[in-house]
């Protein structure tokens, strides 16, 4: 359990939100803070896009994001330094990306 957005939220060992219904913008804000990220409009564009794609059952990869027109890869790294896809997915309340086996 973790205290996110003013409530107790169940997270897994990697800190990812376990139940999608627990996620809201305040939770996202706190998850971002833990990663040292202050969410701006540019961050939200990526987070919203990830959630929208996830809703359609599409697995996201850095390549797909780079080609989406939402953000280029260089900027993505500036927005979410260190691990753009896994951090963006975490803030979006999604599972750790499995763009791998």
């Amino acid at each position, binding site marked *: 359990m973790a205290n996110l957005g003013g409530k107790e939220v169940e997270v897994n060992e990697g800190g990812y939100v376990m139940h999608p219904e627990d996620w809201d913008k305040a939770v996202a804000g706190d998850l971002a803070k833990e990663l040292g990220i202050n969410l701006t409009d540019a961050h939200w564009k990526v987070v919203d896009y990830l959630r929208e794609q996830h809703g359609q059952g599409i697995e996201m990869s*850095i390549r797909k994001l780079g080609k989406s027109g939402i953000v280029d890869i*260089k900027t*993505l790294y500036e927005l979410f330094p260190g691990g753009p896809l896994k951090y963006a997915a975490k803030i979006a309340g999604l599972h750790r990306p*499995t*763009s*791998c*086996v």
Partner: protein
Amino acid sequence: MDDGEWGKSIMTFYEFEAAKALREILKNFNQGIFVVHISEMPIKCPVAPLEFSFLADDYFKKRGVREQITIKYVTPLDGAFTKPKASKSLGHLLTEKNIEIIPDFNVERIDSKAKKLISYDGKEVGYDLLITVPVTKGDDVIGRSNLGDELNFVPTDHHTLQSKAHKNIFVMGDATDVPASKAGSVAHFQADTLVDNIIRYLQGQELVANFDGHANCFIETGGQKGLVIDFNYEIEPLEGNFPFPVIGPLRLLREGRLNHVGKLIFRWMYWHIILRGWPIPGISNKMSMLGKKK
């Protein structure tokens, strides 16, 4: 990237001719920084570059030049492997063999003149010899037919192996985007579900959703040792005995000599048993939890 260095200081083992050329280069590589690098996931088999690193370490030791060579393993993943438990075990093996792992590295470009890899976030790794796994794509024919995604892999139902867009297409192996390795063992297990479902589709019956992402593989770790991993979509590689509980004889996720012997025996089994379509005792297309420690 300056292509002039391709085949000289930048090599790959993913094509027959390239692998043969690499063999010659390795014979004369006596000192410097040796980098094994994965450009982007997915790759055909996430184990292959690890196994290559272990075998390179072994090869350099045998030639008596290992101390003059630094081996680095550069990966876009956050560890040695895609699943946490195996990543820990395999990462430990890398450390034991004095192979430095550089995780979370997404290459933007290669400066082949300065001989360094440069990531999107500005990190740099220098090399004298770079062994890279280029971006892995599906076949061009899938790209041309518009059946594929941006990497020419066909979006596929994970469990029935039916194409998501076209009900009369079933997909496996190198062609599918399911989040499983594109290794032989996976294709072997997929084939059971795929054949079953094509027949069912033609007869107008409901499809079976029984492919579970099952994969297993031997990983040669050098020094005539190896390890075995067995996993699926949900369950990551665990320790235990394989294929039979208690008696094994192979041990999962642990380095050992018997696992190496197992691989040699498997080579014979592949040509004489599997290719004939005969079943292997203890191994089915769905992963078994028997003998595994949770």
